[in-house]
């Protein structure tokens, strides 16, 4: 079948990328053909976006070659890639909110009149034409900040089209689009195909992939798994390629007789969560998983009083619980350990002791508001020993610790208030293998102590290995709650992609 196709316009061979020594891509081959849509699939962190950023000149590669139109391609940056005919629509929006649609589309390459003035007529006419092609009704003079996220995404797409590139990369372009907008995007994609452009399409929505693409490239853990003609694939075979990893790491699951329900959530609503209902028992780990942007962290923040709830009821140990702030949540016995320990978890400039003690300073207060340094130190040392934080010096500034040890400090900080419910958001992100095992042992210890644990994670083996039950979220909706026995990588992936479980709404 491949032989029948034309020559690829793009061939990436052996692409390797390391971020400060840690491999993100290892030896990936990737091709794109003119007049075809190549879908690029893989789990969170499989390396899709990294590969595309290399192609679009946003990242340098550590090793490997790129051939474009049969000649070696070296890029000096994103602008260079654009000039050479490679255009990318990023997952995140990159628009200037205070400028108009037309100004955004032609930012940095505005048409000028012979006198050197900005040629507003040409600017707006050019934008108008692009918008009409995409079926967008808005005037090109509209300020971007007033548009919906979906419309802004359409502006990004219009901007990418305006380069008249020969390769157009679309990274999750339909994430924010309404159905009608998606439909007009698909029409444009078909037009692009017909005019001989190569489209690279990244999406978690398998339906779109089957509808649009000619071939599928699957990546996993920074490696190429395979390139297959879409007509030769089924949904099941794609999912198998995406998740078919052997469970090599050991996850020390422990059996604990679950206690009474500690946290009960009934029809929780927020801007990012729709009618979520579930409960967590003492001595139980409920794993929470889903694709990036599914709203897992947002769910946790709503439970923690850090994000406004718009509906639903919560209870904690049978008592009504309606936190208006994290302060209230903490005083009621909740703790949240953030996925982003540097930005939202730790005070990097302070010591291990000051970090761990911060949420519970009141218990170290003596007469005339004097904080007992000794008592703080003793408490901190207890955690340093229990969690094997290294170096074992409470005065060490947290900034200088390794990722794993920072994470342990972050967890200790959550534990010092003796919570009933502990929410761990990506507890092992950016942590080396040894420290991971220690953190798993620690979490199991907490489970034995009767804590109710909600563990958010993108790592499938971790979720499968550690959880007693697994909750899967797709676009803010709980699409499934699986028992430990019935969960497999495939069932989870189907729920995470939204192929199943919608009926449970």
């Amino acid at each position: 079948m491949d032989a029948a196709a034309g020559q690829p316009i793009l061939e990436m061979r052996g692409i390797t990328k390391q971020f400060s020594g840690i491999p993100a891509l290892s030896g990936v081959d990737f091709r794109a053909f003119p007049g075809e849509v190549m879908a690029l699939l893989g789990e969170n962190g499989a390396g899709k976006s990294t590969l595309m950023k290399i192609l679009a000149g946003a990242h340098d590669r550590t090793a490997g070659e790129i051939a474009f139109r049969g000649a070696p391609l070296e890029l000096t940056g994103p602008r260079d890639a654009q000039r050479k005919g490679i255009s990318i629509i990023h997952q995140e929006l990159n628009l200037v909110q205070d400028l108009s649609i037309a100004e955004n589309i032609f930012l940095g390459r505005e048409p000028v009149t012979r006198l050197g003035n900005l040629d507003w007529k040409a600017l707006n006419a050019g934008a108008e034409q692009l918008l009409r092609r995409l079926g967008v009704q808005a005037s090109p003079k509209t300020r971007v900040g007033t548009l919906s996220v979906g419309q802004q995404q359409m502006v990004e797409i219009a901007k990418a089209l305006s380069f008249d590139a020969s390769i157009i990369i679309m990274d999750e372009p339909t994430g924010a689009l309404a159905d009608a907008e998606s439909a007009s995007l698909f029409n444009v994609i078909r037009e692009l195909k017909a005019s001989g452009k190569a489209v690279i399409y990244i999406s978690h929505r398998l339906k779109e992939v089957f509808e649009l693409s000619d071939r599928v490239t699957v990546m996993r853990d920074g490696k190429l798994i395979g390139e297959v003609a879409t007509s030769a694939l089924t949904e099941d075979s794609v999912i198998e390629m995406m998740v078919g990893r052997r469970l090599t790491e050991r996850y020390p699951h422990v059996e604990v007789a679950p206690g009474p329900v500690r946290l009960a959530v009934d029809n929780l609503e927020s801007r990012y969560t729709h009618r979520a209902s579930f409960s967590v028992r003492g001595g139980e780990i409920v794993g929470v998983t889903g694709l990036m942007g599914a709203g897992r962290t947002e769910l946790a923040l709503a439970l923690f009083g850090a994000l406004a709830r718009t509906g639903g009821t919560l209870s904690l140990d049978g008592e009504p619980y309606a936190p208006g702030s994290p302060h209230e949540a903490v005083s009621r016995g909740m703790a949240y350990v953030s996925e982003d320990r540097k930005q939202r978890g730790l005070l990097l400039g302070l010591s291990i002791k000051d970090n761990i003690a911060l949420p519970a300073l009141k218990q170290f207060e003596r007469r005339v508001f004097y904080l007992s340094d000794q008592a703080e130190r003793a408490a901190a040392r207890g955690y340093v020993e229990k969690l094997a934080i290294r170096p074992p010096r409470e005065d060490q500034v947290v900034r200088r610790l390794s990722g794993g040890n920072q994470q342990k400090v972050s967890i200790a900080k959550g534990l010092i208030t003796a919570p009933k419910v502990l929410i761990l958001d990506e507890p092992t992100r950016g942590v080396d293998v040894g420290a991971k095992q220690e953190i798993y042992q620690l979490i199991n210890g907490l489970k034995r102590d009767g804590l109710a644990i909600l563990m958010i994670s993108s790592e499938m083996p971790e979720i499968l290995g550690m959880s007693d039950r697994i909750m899967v979220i797709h676009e803010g909706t709980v699409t499934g709650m699986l028992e430990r026995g019935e969960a497999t990588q495939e069932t989870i992936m189907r729920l995470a992609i939204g192929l199943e479980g919608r009926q449970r709404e």
Partner: protein
Amino acid sequence: MNKDLLARLRPLIGLVLLSVAVALCSSRFLTTSNLLTVLRQTSINVVIATGMTFVILTGGIDLSVGSILAFAGVVMATLLGTEVPLIVSLGLVLLLGAAIGAVTGLVITKGKVQPFIATFAFMTVLRGATLVFSNGTPMPAGDGDDAFAFLGEGYLLDVPVPILLMIAVLAIAYYVLRHTRFGRYVYALGGNEEAARLSGLRTRLIKTAVYGVSGLLAAMAGIISTARLSSATPTAGTGFELDAIAAVVVGGTSLSGGSGRISGTLLGALIIGILNNALNLLNVPSYYQMIAKGVIILIAVLLDRKTES
């Protein structure tokens, strides 16, 4: 570690070098009476800058302190003309300052206005209110009231009272920042507000309180300066917010919050005070003093940048 130590010692080294240089240039510098004069002149700035240190440690700024000083002065002068007992008047004026600061804090936290803008607005409003209140003319304060005058002109054990008040304020501020929950919260807030919030700290309350402290100390500075001059001038304290910020910055406290020390603020204020004193002793016109102050601030900030990188 060495870098931290160097950063901590820098204001002290600066102060010593400056003092030695001034002492070599003028024999009048190292006399008890001159040093006491420097300290007394610096005391008002130190009191204000102490409050400013709290604010800057949280990553904020307070431009309203000079106006609070003047406003507190005219209110104090008015109260002195009534039957209200002195101790009650003093308490009321301090409370007024704290309340103004707390309201500013609420505008910043609840109204989500940037500290620069919020305190700038209060600076303007209060200056106007002071001028209205006093009809734009200086008000006599405490003529014949020895107890009030004592706060500005008195001596205790041969030390001017403003200096003793300054020392008391510094001691309390040191204790609060170093040994209390509130102090730790101030550093936490400046270090990482989101992490502080997710740790269960009441970040808005803490921030509001910090502006309250700044307002209270600015009002106290207003009392001292009114007592010293025996009159409340509606234009008093103009530009004092910048002197206070200068002292804090020269003292090594980071304008982005989270790190700094009250001892640094004292040293910073002394550096600026001694510089002014030296230029006076050497008969340098006051215009040059502004240039010198600006240059000192630049040097301090540039040196800070260098050790950070």
